[in-house]
């Protein structure tokens, strides 16, 4: 069985309620899922002996600006055993702007989630150290959101007093 079929079959069998949607673009397989299932799905993909997605390459988010579910959190994970990359996606709404952390699955996701939090304002539930990483702690905005202007907001960073 081809690996892509194996992954979709295994995920479909084990996560019936996760609202899985599979798609392919430029030979990359991506799976969209309900955000509540992100932690168990990642854990399963990492620990399954046939798949072994041991490397979490990247976590980021996309701001769609006008969609109902404004953000999509995107995970790129890699299976060294199979030389295969899988994309996981979970929609996050602006009004309920949080998703479970996967830092218990891969340690590297700690900083990557902090970066997403800093840049997009998406909170990661049960994250061990959710602080800003690039911007100063007192900065109120999230720079990679589409409504944040390219030139910044005057007065958003305190300047020396006259």
């Amino acid at each position, binding site marked *: 069985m081809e690996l892509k079929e194996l992954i979709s079959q295994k995920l479909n069998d084990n996560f019936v309620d996760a609202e899985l949607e599979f798609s392919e*673009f*430029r030979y*990359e397989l991506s799976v969209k899922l309900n955000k509540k299932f992100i932690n168990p799905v990642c854990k399963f993909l990492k620990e399954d002996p046939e798949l072994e997605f*041991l*490397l*979490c*390459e*990247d976590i*980021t988010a*996309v*701001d769609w600006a006008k969609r109902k579910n404004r953000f999509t959190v*995107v995970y*790129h994970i890699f299976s*060294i055993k199979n*030389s295969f*990359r899988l*994309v996981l996606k979970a929609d996050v709404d602006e009004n309920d702007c949080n998703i479970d952390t996967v830092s218990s699955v*891969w*340690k*590297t*996701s*700690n*900083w*990557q989630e902090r*970066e997403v939090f800093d*840049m997009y304002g998406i909170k990661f539930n049960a994250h061990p150290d959710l602080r*800003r*990483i*690039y*911007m*100063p*702690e*007192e900065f109120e905005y999230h*720079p*990679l959101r589409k409504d*944040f202007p*390219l030139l910044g907001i005057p007065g958003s960073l*305190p300047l020396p*007093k006259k």
Partner: protein
Amino acid sequence: MDRLTKDDVHPKILQRLLEDTDVTIEDALENEMILNMGPQHPATHGVLRLLLRLDGETVIGCVPDVGYLHRGYEKMAENMSYFEFIPHTDRLDYISPTANNVAWVLAVEKLAGIEVPVRAQYIRMIIAELARIASHLVAIGSFAMDVGALTVFLWTLREREKIMDIWDILCGARFTNSYTRIGGVANDAQPEALALVEKFIDEIDANLSECESLLNTNRIFIERLDGVGVISKEDALSYGFTGPNLRASGVGFDLRRATPYLQYDKVDFRIPTFTEGDSLARYFVRADEVRESAKIVKQCLQLMPKGEIKANLPKSVLPQKVEVYSKMEELIHDFMIVNFGINPPVGEVYHAIEGSKGELGFYIVSKGEGHPWKCKIRSPSFIHIQSLPHLVKGHMVSDVVAIIGSIDPIMGEADK
């Protein structure tokens, strides 16, 4: 001058300050000390700040603090065309700029579905491998300097200077090269540049051995690195290590083999791996990789065919400058591409190459416009710095310097 009062400082900062400087002075000998290392420390390889909690000279805790250099390149990428972003990739890992160019254009080409002529692919391989050699030479030299050996630094920079001379002829710039274009490279590799490449490759083995003879038999160098900053295979994978740092922990993972791009499946090379996972192993991997890269460049020079260096797609590939100035059709295409950009189809791709520091990846989301809707840079240095608390715990303050050098971070890349 007015003094700041408590009310002038943001409560969050105040809280952090109080947490960070948790020092009492009743009994100096029995208390822990907080040491701020950086952000301007010469051994932090850039603006990296480490908050160290010390018991005597032993590090018992560490909090890395990045972001001092953050220039918002991802935000900028969303506001400029795919071509315009090429020079900006140079400023990420500024020690191997051409490799970053290659990573970016490969990601865009994957998104737009552009096939590149074979000659251009070989030229890209040559510049990417030369960039790796240059980067490793700086890494080895500055690493040796961090632990007290200055001569090696001068010798490795002397070798790197030769690569910069090659870049000077190849693309007219020594430091920030911007040599690649979407669909190919800016201009064909000149015979004199290729002759310099060949000369450099023939000499690098002997010259590197000369540097190694200063280090590998040096008891101080070895003892300062052996068993320092050990990370196991499992931890390295969990921390997202890639590149030489991962291979020093015993995982033979290399994107040039795992997901071959360009013509890497046509050349023969070895993936150096060590199992110790300590600072010394990370140095050995880099030295071995220089030789393997030289081997790849040598094969590229032999395998490289003659022919086109840009894809024949006038609507998405910039024409040669000389033709823009003399032909109407080319002028129109140049105008259209520069002003309105290429419009790749709606979709999203992630493409990663094996950079000198590790996996350098670009994630691009396109809405069919001339500029990316979203661009994410997966930079290896950012990921590696995260593991510093794990690596330095239990070591001495002087070992921290060696450990930072051994993971070879570049802050331009970590802070994006």
